């Protein structure tokens, strides 16, 4: 009985070893393109990547989504990224200044607008315009962290331009990325939030758009190839593909506008 148990245990260990080995080995003859993209591009980039993969057999696109500021940090510190798509020219410029971006590969691929959203149902605060954020019914307003989330930086510009930042500041709650801001609003944890039009379009039944905002620098999404990428031609092809009519149509369908 003990020998039987020992044999089956040995069999189990062998099987586990083979399984581990299989997991560790890269899938043969596949090329993986790592694309770091701003959180707000999430669904659009997934759709675009799927089309790109379909048009390039053997190529797999690995998406890494996050706040543009965080993505820059990752690239600057040597993360193995091939293409970087930022929600903010300034964030991309930081990467260019750090010498990690092939500057000539930079292309603007889309535009977006900043909107003010409120919970679609159950919101207690009365927010019909930007100025209402200073009203007595508003407790919490969510924005992205201005230092790392472009949508948060744009939101601060909007509040500054409207002369409201001093009054709204104590009510601000900071999201890690624009999607977290959207989530806070959708759950009703905050009374209002600043997100992109494309984000608000994802949850029409959970968030209501109060209005499109002005007073901030244009929301442009630049894409560029990382200089340390070992797949320069493929990375450049991906950036070019983002400007193709096919990819542009997908971006528009997800609430972005043409560059």
């Amino acid at each position, binding site marked *: 009985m003990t020998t039987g148990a020992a044999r089956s245990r040995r069999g189990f260990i062998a099987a586990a070893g083979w399984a581990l080995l299989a997991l560790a080995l890269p899938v043969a003859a596949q090329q993986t393109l790592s694309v770091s993209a701003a959180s707000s591009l999430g669904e659009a980039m997934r759709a675009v990547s799927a089309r790109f993969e379909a048009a390039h057999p053997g190529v797999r696109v690995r998406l890494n989504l996050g706040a543009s*500021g965080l993505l*820059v940090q990752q690239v600057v510190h040597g993360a193995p990224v091939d293409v970087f798509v930022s929600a903010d020219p300034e964030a991309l410029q*930081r990467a260019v200044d750090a010498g990690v971006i092939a500057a000539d590969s930079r292309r603007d691929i889309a535009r977006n607008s900043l909107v003010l959203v409120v919970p679609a149902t*159950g919101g207690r605060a009365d927010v019909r315009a930007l100025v209402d954020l200073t009203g007595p019914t508003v407790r919490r307003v969510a924005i992205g962290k201005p*230092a790392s989330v472009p949508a948060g930086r744009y939101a601060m510009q909007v509040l500054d331009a409207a002369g409201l930042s001093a009054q709204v500041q104590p009510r601000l709650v900071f*999201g*890690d990325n624009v999607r977290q801001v959207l989530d806070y609003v959708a759950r*009703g*944890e905050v009374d209002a939030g600043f997100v992109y039009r494309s984000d608000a379009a994802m949850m029409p039944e959970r968030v209501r758009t109060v209005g499109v905002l002005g007073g901030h620098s244009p929301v442009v999404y630049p894409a560029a190839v990382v200089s340390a990428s070992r797949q320069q031609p493929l990375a450049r092809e991906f950036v070019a593909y983002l400007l193709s009519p096919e990819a542009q149509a997908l971006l528009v369908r997800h609430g972005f506008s043409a560059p």
Partner: protein
Amino acid sequence: MPLLPLLRDFDAAPLALTLRVAVFATAIALLLGVALGWLFARTRLPGRSVLEALCMLPLVLPPTVLGYGLLVVMGRRGVVGAWLHEHFDYSVIFHWHGAVLASALVALPLVLKGASTAFAQVDRTLEDAARTLNQSALSVFLRVTLPLAWPGILAGTLLAFARAMGEFGASLMVAGSIPGQTQTAAMAVYDAVQAGRDDVAALLALAISALSVAILLLSNRLLAPQPPVR
């Protein structure tokens, strides 16, 4: 690196908040952990093992699961959160109390395990002896059981304090990272790295490390010279 201006602008608020959160969270975990530890070690409560497993869960779960759970339960639309908001106009979301709650939950299993093991190892004959000396149940607990179990409870509590100081994921999801209000040292490091302020992050990391070493030294001091158990 311009160290002097960096030191001058150094914001100690996240460190102070971290200590405040850890102290409150550990206090809650200590009270609950001792009570539950005694319950699990000394009583034949039905469903005891399931309850104990549930209490140990925060130790095993990813912090994000705990954070999500707290958001769902304590959020403005959660069962408990909606009630609190309705009746007391109070919410732990985006409040440092939320960080205390999250930290207390992750710290609880450490106190609980230490306490229940310690209670199980206390010599029952000593308690019986105290009872023959006409001591009340509470008196036996306070004067015999608790002092004998104390080293185990203290060890668990110090671990709990360390864990509470380092809590990040669940607290971030529940309390947010609002500078000066809910931003603990762990969150301040995270924000500084995201914003590319490596100098601030490094200084904070040094400060946290120094603080942690101080606490560890203190705890060794507290734990080391134990009177021999007679």
